[in-house]
């Protein structure tokens, strides 16, 4: 057996559930995951080599072919495209000599596009291996590529002062936090984690769950499930071992608030997990961190270690009898892993395929044990709520949507960044805070949410019964082509569909092609009917929320901005459809005829 593979297997005790970590180590070692390593890896894990490939090929940061010594991933979100993506794209190709999707002749650079990397407030941005560069311009690209060619590492370029990777300063030197507006719940310097944990661990789990339920706090992943109820169900589920998972796979395009929370409030996140562990009777916590946030890993590890040193984590936390520790699981590029059951599959070292429900994760989750998965923001909010009391929390927001929400605002506005607002705040108010003028449309909750018209919907409120926002708020002014935005979002869903079910795998491709047809001016009115019919099939028959929401960019713009479609539609004249290309249809005939005639001559 290959010695390097053997040592990687040993590092993780040949535990199949750690396959993601092993694949990262293989890629770090060789630059890609070649077919040659699969048999040894498979043998160590008692899997067929292609079973290993099955997992590896699911994640877009894992490469099966040489991908360059420096792998550059340029974020291609709609926001990036509004902020100079094209010029940066061209500059990267010109400077590296590589084309996007491949490597240059020397094998030094690999260029790839990637979906939102959680930097919508500082686009254009790219990852170079495990670090990121923001506010890119062609000049900055020239400088970076020049330094890489001169032998500097990406790390040295982004961190010339050599700040240790486990320091907050290291993260802050690389990316901006842009906390524009603090509210009562988040980014509170005064929270004493030690005292909070001490008081919580002294309280009975039932009492804490009751307080959480009373505060009417809902989970921040987007579905808005009651946080208290989730803990209760997990507590009541039978299992000798239970797990608390923090979903830090912030993949929804346009959101970046979890990144900023992990940067500035990691101890609140972890304290929230410890409390959750105490409530449900769990001994293990996992933070599933998206690979796009690799630069946070060492910093978060050092924060965990400090908490262990302070007896806030590990065996017998604060001498209160609780054993609870947390490990970080890295993802590898898959939006679908934001779905809690797909995330759990990924934690088990498999493809991020959403599971069938029932059973639900609170009954059978990680390794089939009861598992409570919550968003980063939920853990911080719960820690703060238990510190200040459920009455206090409940007094914030509206009757049915209590507390506050972090908005990640990006796009056409002068001050993109993080805004904490009470539920009940209007869309117009949020836009004014961010300096958005001349706004035409806003995408609420990212591509999986809805596109609203500022003129019609500006006075609508953020709350679960109206604009139920998962944190992403992208703003478009009147100069923007909304149909192009819709197209981009559909491409995103095509790229990110896991492919396990028919409607999402195949349906999104056809929806995308239909949008292309309309954009090309070859659509007719019946194509709009097709869009609606096909969208309903995808929405209602898909296995998980990805297909359940993917047609929303189309359906919501058809409702709010029908003119963007109507302008492109052609009236139907004569027997041929506008989409029918007569020349293309007979091109094959002409070629065949020419070839046959040629044969006759010969």
């Amino acid at each position, binding site marked *: 057996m290959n010695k390097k593979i053997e040592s990687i297997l040993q590092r993780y005790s040949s535990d199949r559930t750690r396959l993601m970590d092993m694949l990262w180590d293989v890629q770090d070692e060789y630059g890609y995951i070649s077919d040659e390593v699969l048999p040894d890896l498979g043998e160590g894990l008692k899997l067929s080599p292609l079973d290993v490939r099955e997992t590896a090929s699911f994640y877009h940061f894992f490469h099966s072919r040489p991908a360059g010594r420096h792998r550059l991933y340029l974020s291609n979100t709609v926001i990036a495209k509004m902020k100079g993506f094209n010029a940066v794209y061209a500059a990267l190709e010109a400077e590296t000599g590589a084309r996007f999707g491949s490597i240059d002749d020397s094998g030094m650079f690999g260029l790839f596009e990637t979906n939102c990397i959680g930097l919508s407030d500082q686009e254009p941005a790219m990852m170079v291996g495990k670090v990121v560069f923001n506010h890119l311009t062609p000049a900055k690209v020239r400088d970076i590529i020049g330094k890489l060619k001169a032998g500097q590492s990406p790390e040295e370029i982004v961190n010339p002062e050599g700040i240790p990777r486990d320091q907050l300063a290291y993260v802050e030197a690389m990316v901006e936090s842009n906390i524009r507006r603090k509210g009562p719940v988040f980014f509170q310097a005064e929270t004493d984690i030690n005292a909070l944990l001490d008081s919580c661990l002294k309280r009975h789990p039932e009492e804490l769950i009751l307080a959480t339920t009373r505060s009417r706090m809902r989970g921040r992943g987007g579905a808005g499930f009651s946080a208290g109820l989730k803990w209760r169900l997990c507590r009541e589920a039978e299992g000798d071992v239970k797990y608390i998972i923090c979903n830090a796979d912030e993949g929804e395009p346009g959101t970046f608030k979890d990144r900023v929370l992990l940067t500035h409030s990691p101890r609140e996140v972890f304290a929230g997990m410890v409390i959750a562990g105490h409530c449900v009777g769990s001994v293990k916590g996992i933070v599933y961190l998206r690979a796009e946030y690799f630069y946070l890993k060492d910093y978060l590890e050092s924060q965990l270690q400090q908490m262990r040193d302070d007896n806030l984590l590990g065996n017998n936390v604060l001498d209160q009898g609780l054993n609870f520790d947390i490990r970080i699981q890295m993802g590898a590029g898959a939006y679908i892993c934001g779905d809690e059951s797909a995330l759990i599959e990924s934690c088990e070292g498999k493809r991020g395929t959403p599971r069938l429900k029932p059973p639900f994760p609170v009954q059978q989750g990680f390794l089939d044990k009861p598992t409570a998965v919550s968003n980063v923001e939920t853990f911080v909010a719960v820690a703060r709520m238990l510190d200040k009391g459920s009455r206090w929390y409940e007094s914030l927001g509206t009757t049915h949507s209590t507390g506050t929400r972090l908005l990640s605002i990006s796009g056409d506005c002068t001050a993109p960044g993080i805004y904490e607002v009470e539920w009940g705040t209007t869309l117009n108010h949020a836009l004014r805070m961010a300096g958005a003028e001349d706004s035409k449309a806003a995408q609420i909750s990212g591509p999986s949410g809805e596109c609203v018209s500022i003129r019609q919907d500006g006075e609508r409120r953020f709350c679960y019964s109206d604009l139920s926002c998962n944190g992403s708020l992208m703003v478009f002014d009147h100069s923007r082509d909304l149909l192009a935005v819709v197209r981009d979002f559909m491409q995103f869903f095509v*790229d990110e569909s896991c492919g396990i079910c028919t409607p999402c795998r195949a349906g999104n491709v*056809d929806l995308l092609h239909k949008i292309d047809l309309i954009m090309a001016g070859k659509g007719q009115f019946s194509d709009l009917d097709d869009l609606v019919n096909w969208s309903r099939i995808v929405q209602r028959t898909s296995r998980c929320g990805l297909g359940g929401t993917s047609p929303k960019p189309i359906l919501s713009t058809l409702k709010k901005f029908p003119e963007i479609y109507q302008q492109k539609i052609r009236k139907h004249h004569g027997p041929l459809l506008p989409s029918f290309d007569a020349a293309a249809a007979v091109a094959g005939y002409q070629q065949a005829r020419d070839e046959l005639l040629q044969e006759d001559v010969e």
Partner: protein
Amino acid sequence: MSITMTIDGMEVTAEDGSNLVDVASDNGVYIPTLCYTRGRPCLGTCRVCSVKVNGYVTAACAMPVSEGMTVDVSDPEVSDMRQGLVEILFTEGKHNCPSCEKSGRCELQAVGYELGMLVSRFPYRFPVRDREVGARHIWLERDRCIFCQRCVEFVRDKATDRKIFSISGRGSNARIEIDIELADAMPPEQVTEAAEICPVGCIIEKRVGFDDPIGQRRFEVETLRERATARSTDE
């Protein structure tokens, strides 16, 4: 425990928690499936068994029955969705029945007939996917794969329980793969089982093509509906 529920307005009794597709079949109501087969774990991949349960569209194969459940199978809206899913499978891959060895024993073809599909509402893509002919007894005609995952989940190496078939890539770039070493170790019955378990003509057994004459094949002598609901008519 026995429960009472309704399927298309008909009151039926069934064992609590049993599979909705099976319960419907046993009561003479055919729900098409392409990934689910009776007696095997639910895969929930094709979604062709979508029905309305208490008004919500859901895949019947993944739905355990419970007391008071109201199931609509023949509701026009959801019937159209089922047909749409079958249609999109025909256009996503390349399904040219007259030239396919599986014709007459192909479940996709039979379900297409059963739903009265004449043409797909979706544009034909005619994908070109490499076929895999490296294994001694099996060839993979990838153009026809519908990603049901039956072979991936149900056909395992006898000695080691490792996967013989697997999926690479994801989404519309997903591709069915075969481990040639393990495939060559498959006993003949398992090769036949793999070909039979495939609901389309993707897994083809080498050297036995057209052993059953056209006209006498499984779904040419008996429709899928008749097969599925045989138990209800026996009684």
